[in-house]
């Protein structure tokens, strides 16, 4: 999980505020990240996250199976968010340097 728009990061982020089934997950991700995941990408990521114990399936409600983030999933998401925050801080700092340099050169 490296980038903010990686399907696993998006799914963990969506599940961080409560269990959701596939359709609710896709709609939530589209709303907060503007990313539309195809069914193959969505369920590929769901199955990999479940196998790694980062999310777990709850008993099916009709045919729809809600998923929920596990403690391990929350820890993995926290790690990914911290990594992205560090990257954002470095990027922000370097952009500020670039802006200062440009001002000096101008």
């Amino acid at each position: 999980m490296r980038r903010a728009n990686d399907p696993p990061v998006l799914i963990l982020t969506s599940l961080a505020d409560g269990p959701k089934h596939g359709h609710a997950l896709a709609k939530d991700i589209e709303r907060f990240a503007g990313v539309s995941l195809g069914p193959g990408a969505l369920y590929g990521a769901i199955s990999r996250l479940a196998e790694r114990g980062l999310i777990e399936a709850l008993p099916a409600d009709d045919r729809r199976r809600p998923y929920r983030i596990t403690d391990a999933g929350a820890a993995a998401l926290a790690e990914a968010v911290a990594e992205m925050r560090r990257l954002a801080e470095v990027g922000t700092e370097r952009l500020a340097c670039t802006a200062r340099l440009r001002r000096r050169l101008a």
Partner: protein
Amino acid sequence: MRGRSWLLRCYPRGWRERYGEDLAAYLDDAYPGRLPVPAALSLAGGGLAQRFRESAGLGTDAAAGARLRDGVLVVLAAWAAFVVAGASFAKLSEHFDSSLSERTRAVPDLAYTALQAVASLSGLAVVAGIAFAIPALLRLLTRGGWNQVRRHVLRAAAATVPTVAMTAGLVGWAHQLTGAQRNGGSAGYSAAFLVWAVLVAVSVGLWTVAAVVTARRLSLSRPVLLVEGALAITVTVGMLVMVAAAVTWWASLASTSPSFLAGGVAGPTSQWNPQLVATVVLMLSALTVASLGTVRVVRAARPLVASGV
């Protein structure tokens, strides 16, 4: 709709068994009309990627986890049959050392002690396997899973009640009988013992079915699955050692004290006690089934181990 089911077939069977229904429901929700081409391509690509991952043993996958769990449950079912055979063996071998001299006692004693020790260790492995699954069991029960397993658990509990009651009655009766009466001298006691043995076997069988039905609904993490697999392998190895010890015990008794095997009456076929033959055949059958389950566990564990715990 037909095109959707065809696209779902791009995914491996094990994956479809776990996610197929949910994915089909998602497609109905997200694309109530005709499935757009990008979504169809996403499905086809996802299915083929999943097949590639499984065939290459890459990453972790649901099918491997499901296969590993099935293998563990096959070993558990074989262990239940082995327990029944073990109880029969324990009854057959009661007081065997009193029929042996100091000189001839060493080998059967050693085999019997080894069998008892390995039976205890294997039993502990089964208990440990159950203990590792308890958190997942509690999660299942707290999320409404009881309704899915209730019928099987209640059926097993219903069979256990008369078994426990009859055990208490039989123990009380046995204390009033002589050793000879307990070992075939009393027709009534023998008949009651047979009924009790059938009840025990039925109870063990029903609890095993309940355990299998419940375990198939548990959501087990990869590390827990791998631990369960390792315990299943341990139990199978234990069963192998116990069969070897039982056969060694049988062979040494057959050569040194065949009359014991025939219930005190020596004859040309004393060593082929029918109950002992049936017991060892049941042990061997259970071992064979457990070995098949273990092969499944080992094959399924490879991709899980390769992707790291």
